[in-house]
């Protein structure tokens, strides 16, 4: 945004400069003004001789020339930048100045819904994230990098598979079964964010080239979001892409290359340890030894790698008085740290703006992206899931068996049913396949063509009154291809399996707005916006698949006719319409008293016609105390109080949840129909009432921002569970308006230029969020395997049995009953003595009294939602070097380490090395029971969470360390003869360190992304650390 302003102002100021030329002629001073943050040259900076009206402005290359009297002081200033004064000595003829951004950013223009506003006038809670902070980072999508950048925005990267989308929550979780994701609006057009791949996870936001993005605005409170009405309950992220500016054209290249690696690995048994443990499980349970010493294989060596990453972007921008342009080309190729998982993206953007005459402005934003993701089967429970399989595969067998020619030299059983057993006497549990064969032979590919485009026309009808129309489209054209080798792995059971799908999403969005701005006597300032918005989204899809492939040749790229004997097809269709009328009034009195009122009436096709329309009002007020006459503090330069209230809704309630009907079903080869949804006509809008008070304060070099907020969601559209014995379709739940919930919290942000000594400076920017979630009303608790949501608690708390340790007398696992007494599962060799027994604290060996562990003994084991989180950016600069250290932290939540529990399994597959601590003799104090073949369910209570594996999820992560060097312009000029305007080299490491007490691989790993099931680390791929070197060059 700053760039645009710079351009506009440079135009004005150069006229001013021309007028001043030749006034006094004493001495000529020339120089260049550059940005502190990125070294780019700054056009349009105001250069004035202090105490005079003598002044000029920098040109398009940041160069100025001014004639000044002796012993003058030059003042360099520009909106959004810190003003700098430079004394001109007697002999000085050249001054290069570096301007840093003004941290208070009062005049910064912020994009809000359907318009812009100056920061000082904002009465809602809006946080801007500069794209500059993110653009050199290597990431599959921009959203993964937003975490910690703004108070109130939590972003969790749940695993290290490329394509997986991060979990983004603004001010907590604001829905139970509807979507909790924010609304993303790119250049004014709300974009489709549903994953349209049917085989792998693909993040639709990965179709946006991060380096095309100019700024991110996060709208958090009711007032800021109210203009988006029904779509804004989960917050809004507004994205503005780069546009050209008037002046000399510029060409910029930015690129990085590097590699990614997994941050950590599982500590598994080696082959020899496995033999000991596996046979001890057997002997303890009365079986015979199955494991026989062989190799020492770490399957992780095969599935993990250092993945190569690179990204290159070229942009061209510039413009004339009447037209501006921005074109970009982008390419990225990122390999994850798990083999066979990578992403390639080619992107193109053209943003054009054209003035026609004096009153009409036309423009377009157009981007096309081609993204290919080679995904991974990482199903937590899939036999061919990379992590599941590699951590369970027998460590005492080899990966390859050159003699096994039929299976390309991979080690498999002779029939191909399972991983080869080596010297062992049995196959690995569940006949899991050789993961190396699977990864090397099966394909999971998604190719997506995405077009995001809009055109607008902006007409100034009369002074202050303008009309704007904008039509946007969002096309997602994804092509899935999956093939499974017929010999081994998932394809074996069907003699090969090939699947292809096309699931396009089409959206058009049309907005018409009228805007009127009026200032009366310079004290009464009005800004009124009114508009209509229409939107239609169509999701459709079809797929074809085949099984029974004799020849593997045909599994490479696409379905090939006649290559398979069994053919299948499928398809789906749904549509959603949206229609809205809205208005907003912003008024301020002398920049002192600020009021904003907005209202919106939205209708969606997903509700029955009688309840289709919803009204969503919002209002906010602000008081800039620092503008008052009585406010005379010289220390405090800005002080604003804000308050807001709004009612919002959530449109992501599923397609036509009110409309019951019969769907097609197949009973074998016979056509049937069945009631798959019951009708519930009274279903209506849920309301989300958001209240916010906040203040902004600038105190010398420190700016301070604080907010307190509450969100109350009532009449929630909840997929309310119904007792299964009622057999209600489709899956024992009916969408109903039941339940309410409350989120409240505090957000703080402090930023400061801590130190500025000569050529060294240190800036810091710290944010902190405290948030509390409480479910205040429900008909019945909502439960799943690990989690339960109940009134009076936060969403999705862990729920399970309470571990009481290992009985040191006999190695039995013990659990607490509800009454606080302890029971043990007697792992007796004699089956008649097996089962639950009471534990006698005075006689540990006594297993004579039968007892039980029942669902009445289940208990809450910890909340899964973090209660505190934030980020901390420190930027240091010395001469031409700059260093940014970005730290992110979060905590207050608990994690169920299901990965660990399952790796302590009692079957014939590999274990976590912790199992070496198992109980082996009376009197031994340990937290691993006696090993016992086949007793997973009783030992670990696998059907529920277990406090033995529940741990705190607190962490502090050094997210990024970025070291930059700006090639001095003198050097550049010398080398390139003025052709290269700027050059910066960067060395960075993303995700270098994490400090946490959690003993899994990473405290953010999460199997589930929905709200009700959360905080479960279950065979997720370790997250990625990336090292890279980058180069930015401007021509």
């Amino acid at each position, binding site marked *: 945004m700053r760039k645009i302003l710079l351009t506009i102002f440079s135009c004005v100021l150069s006229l001013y400069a021309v007028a001043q030329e030749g006034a006094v002629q004493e001495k000529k001073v020339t120089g260049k003004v550059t940005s502190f943050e990125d070294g780019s040259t700054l056009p349009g900076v105001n250069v004035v001789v202090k105490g005079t009206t003598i002044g000029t402005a920098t040109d398009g290359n940041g160069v100025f020339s001014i004639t000044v009297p002796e012993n003058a002081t030059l003042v360099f200033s520009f909106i959004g930048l810190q003003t700098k004064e430079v004394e001109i000595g007697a002999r000085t003829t050249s001054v290069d100045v570096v301007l840093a951004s003004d941290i208070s950013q009062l005049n910064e223009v912020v994009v809000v819904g359907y318009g812009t506003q100056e920061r000082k006038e904002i009465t809602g809670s809006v946080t801007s994230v500069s794209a500059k902070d993110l653009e050199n980072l290597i990431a599959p999508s921009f959203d993964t990098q937003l975490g910690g950048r703004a108070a109130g925005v939590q972003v969790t990267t749940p695993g290290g598979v490329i394509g997986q989308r991060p979990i983004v929550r603004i001010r907590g979780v604001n829905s139970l079964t509807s979507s909790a994701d924010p609304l993303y609006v790119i250049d004014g057009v709300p974009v489709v964010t549903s994953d349209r791949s049917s085989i792998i996870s693909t993040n639709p936001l990965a179709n946006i080239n991060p380096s095309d993005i100019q700024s991110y605005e996060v709208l958090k409170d009711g007032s800021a979001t109210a203009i988006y009405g029904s779509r804004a309950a989960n917050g809004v992220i507004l994205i503005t892409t780069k546009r050209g500016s008037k002046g000399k054209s510029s060409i910029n290249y930015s690129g990085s290359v590097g590699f990614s690696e997994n941050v950590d690995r599982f500590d598994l048994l080696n082959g020899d340890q496995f033999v000991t443990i596996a046979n001890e499980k057997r002997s303890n*349970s*009365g*079986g*015979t030894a199955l494991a026989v010493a062989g190799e020492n294989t770490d399957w992780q060596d095969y599935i993990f790698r250092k993945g190569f990453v690179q990204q290159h972007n070229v942009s061209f921008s510039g413009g004339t008085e009447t037209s501006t342009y921005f074109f970009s080309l982008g390419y990225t190729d990122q390999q994850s740290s798990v083999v066979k998982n990578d992403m390639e993206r080619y992107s193109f953007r053209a943003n054009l703006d054209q003035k026609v005459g004096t009153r009409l402005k036309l423009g377009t934003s157009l981007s096309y992206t081609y993204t290919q993701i080679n995904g991974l089967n990482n199903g937590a429970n899939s036999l061919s899931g990379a992590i599941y399989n590699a951590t369970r595969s027998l460590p005492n067998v080899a990966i390859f068996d050159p003699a096994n020619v039929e299976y390309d030299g991979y080690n498999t059983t002779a*029939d191909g*049913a*399972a991983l080869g057993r080596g010297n062992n*006497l*049995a*196959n690995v*549990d569940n*006949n899991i396949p050789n993961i190396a064969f699977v990864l090397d032979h099966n394909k999971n590919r998604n190719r997506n063509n995405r077009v995001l485009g809009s055109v607008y026309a902006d*007409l100034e009808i009369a002074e202050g009154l303008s009309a704007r*129309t904008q039509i946007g489209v969002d096309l997602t054209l994804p092509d899935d291809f999956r093939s499974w080798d017929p010999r081994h792995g998932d394809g074996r*059971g069907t003699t090969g399996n090939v699947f292809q799908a096309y699931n396009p999403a089409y959206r058009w969005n049309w907005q018409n707005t009228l805007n009127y701005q009026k200032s009366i006597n310079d004290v009464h300032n009005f800004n009124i916006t009114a508009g*209509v918005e*229409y939107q239609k989204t169509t999701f459709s899809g079809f797929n074809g698949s085949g*099984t*029974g492939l004799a020849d593997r040749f045909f599994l490479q790229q696409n379905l090939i006719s006649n290559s398979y004997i*069994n053919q299948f097809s499928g398809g*789906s*269709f*749904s549509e959603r*319409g949206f*229609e809205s009328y809205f208005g907003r009034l912003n008024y301020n009195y002398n920049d002192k008293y600020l009021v904003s009122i907005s209202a919106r009436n939205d209708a969606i*096709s997903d509700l029955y*016609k009688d309840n289709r329309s919803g009204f969503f009002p919002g209002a906010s007020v602000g008081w800039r105390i620092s503008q008052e006459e009585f406010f005379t503090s010289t220390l405090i330069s800005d002080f604003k109080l804000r308050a807001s209230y709004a009612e919002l809704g959530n449109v992501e309630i599923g397609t*036509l949840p*009110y*409309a*019951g*009907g019969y*769907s097609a079903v*197949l*009973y*074998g080869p*016979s056509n*049937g129909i*069945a*009631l798959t949804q*019951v*009708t519930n006509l009274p279903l209506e809008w849920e309301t989300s009432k958001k209240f916010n008070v906040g203040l902004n304060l600038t105190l010398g070099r420190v700016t301070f921002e604080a907010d307190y907020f509450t969100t109350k969601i009532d009449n929630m559209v909840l997929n309310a569970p*119904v*007792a*299964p*014995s*009622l*057999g*209600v379709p489709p899956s024992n739940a009916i969408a109903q308006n039941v339940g309410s919930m409350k989120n409240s919290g505090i957000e703080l942000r402090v930023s400061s230029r801590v130190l500025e000594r000569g050529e060294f400076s240190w800036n810091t920017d710290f944010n902190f969020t405290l948030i509390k979630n409480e479910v205040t009303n429900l008909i019945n608790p909502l*439960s799943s395997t690990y989690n339960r949501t109940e009134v009076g608690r936060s969403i999705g708390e862990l729920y399970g049995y309470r571990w009481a340790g290992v009985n040191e007398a006999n190695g039995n696992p013990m659990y607490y009953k509800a009454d606080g007494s302890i029971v043990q599962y007697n792992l007796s060799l004699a*089956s008649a003595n097996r089962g639950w027994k009471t534990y006698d604290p005075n006689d540990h060996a006594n297993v004579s009294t039968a007892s039980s562990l*029942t*669902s009445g003994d289940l208990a809450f084991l910890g909340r899964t939602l973090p209660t505190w989180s934030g980020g901390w950016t420190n930027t240091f600069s010395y001469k031409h070097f700059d260093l940014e250290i970005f730290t992110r932290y979060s905590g207050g939540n608990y994690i169920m380490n299901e990965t660990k529990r399952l790796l302590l399994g009692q*079957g014939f597959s590999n274990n976590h090395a912790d199992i070496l601590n198992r109980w082996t003799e009376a009197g031994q104090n340990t937290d691993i029971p006696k090993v016992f*073949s*086949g*007793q997973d*369910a009783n030992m670990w209570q696998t*059907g*529920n969470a277990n406090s033995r594996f529940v741990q705190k999820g607190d962490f502090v992560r050094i997210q990024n360390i970025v070291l930059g060097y700006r090639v001095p312009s003198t050097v550049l000029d010398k080398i390139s003869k003025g052709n290269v305007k700027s050059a910066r080299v960067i060395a960075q490491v993303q995700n270098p360190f994490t400090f946490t007490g959690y003993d899994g691989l990473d405290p953010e790993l999460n199997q589930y992304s929905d709200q009700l099931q959360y905080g479960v680390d279950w065979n997720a791929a370790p997250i990625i650390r990336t090292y890279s070197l980058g180069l930015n060059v401007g021509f």
Partner: protein
Amino acid sequence: MKIKFINKVVGMAALFGAMTGCSLTDVEPADRILDGVDGATAINTAGRVKTAVIGVYEAAQRGYYQGAVDRGYPFGAAATEQGDMRGEDMYNDQAFFEITYTNAWTPTTANNVAMWAGLYRVINRANIVLAAIDNAVATGIITETLGNNYRSEVLFLRALSHHEALIHFSRPFSGAPDSYGVPYRTSPIDGTDDIAGGLEAGRGTVASAYAALLKDLDDAERFAPTTGAASSDPVAFTVTPYFANKNAIIALKTRVKLHMRDWAGVITEYDKIKTAYQLMPTPEGPFVNWTSTEAVFSMQNSAISNPGTNASLANMYGNPDFKARGLVKVSPVIWRSAFWVDGDLRKTTLTTSNANGVFSHKYRRYTINDDATPLIRFAEVILNAAEAYARQGDLTTAVTLVNQVRDRAIPASTPSYTEASLGDQNGVLTAIWNERRIEFLAEGRRWADIHRLAGEGLLTGVPSKAQSRSVTAIAQYSAGGRLVLDHPLLYTNDLFVWPIPLDETLNNPTLAAQQNKGY
């Protein structure tokens, strides 16, 4: 000029807004036929009555497993596997069925949750379709007679589902007829208004549930066409085991009455259909020809509609040599038992082996997974009758009947059973029970027999099994091979019946108060 242009733009915008405004939010689904919205009735043609009835079979064939249609609960295949894994004659080779095999279930175990939910999904779908049939008859869409024909099939499925629920979730009629049954649901739940009423129904007693299901079966028998089933073809009434006809309904009654120890009743029902079916000449017959003269009622699967690789019978039970997963083997417990003689065709033609053990060869559509799931075979009806005769002391008829099933399988060198060779009534009954174990191996019937016989005290509970994952070599099938026994479950143990799932007790206060003991 400019003003005019603006007017045009604004005018067009308003017009377009008005045009799209009224239609934009009027969206109807393309993937479901509306029912109950603005008076729409989905079942408004004779064709849709038929397809709605077929929809009830679909619920039986493929129910929900953890939220997705998969695995063939409650009758498609998963139920067969659960029935076998609760018994001792099939053996769990992998972690897959370990919880069931080792009696380690809890109210959240996915299998029993899916079974419960799947059965009541059939039941409610049946009730919804019964109401739709009533409406179709009342509005003249179909005739009363045809309506009754359809009703008979739906009532049959409703009764079958309740019976299966009783076998898994309640104590047996033979042991505790006055203990908790299962809610017998007869009215549709198809809207929020129906929920409260549905939640009022308690479990009643086992006896009352049996009475209700027998009434359904009697009505079904009365309503059924003389031959065939309306949903297979409402004109020709084609006879096929995939749709319930009158004889299938009667056959189910022999099973139900056997559980009720109504021996005379079993024989009465048997007599009605004893000539309607014929055993195939060899035991392999019904598995080579799924619609043979011996098939009474089966679930039909197809390549596209089947229980999937995670449950299909061929995949779970088949020999890995044939690309099956082979997670369940024939147990050495029955293989090595004296009553299953070597050379029995059920050993030689209905099993295969590899180095790791013996696998069932009843289901052979490996990689396609469309084997029919046999639910009632005539062999069972015969053995039901044989037991009823034996119980009543008519050992001669009993022996004749059991020999019908056995003689087609045993080698020429093995003599047929005689009253004399079997000794007394107990000997005859034991022979019949053993014959059931052999004949229905890998058909999921074992649990039902354990359930009723343990209730009578004829078994102490679930007999010991080959220890889970202890059978790793074919040598263990030979006499003298290593056999570790484990996992017995006494009838008196609370685990003997499955718990009401936690999802149910959380959302249903009535059943929360009626949970099975010990859970």
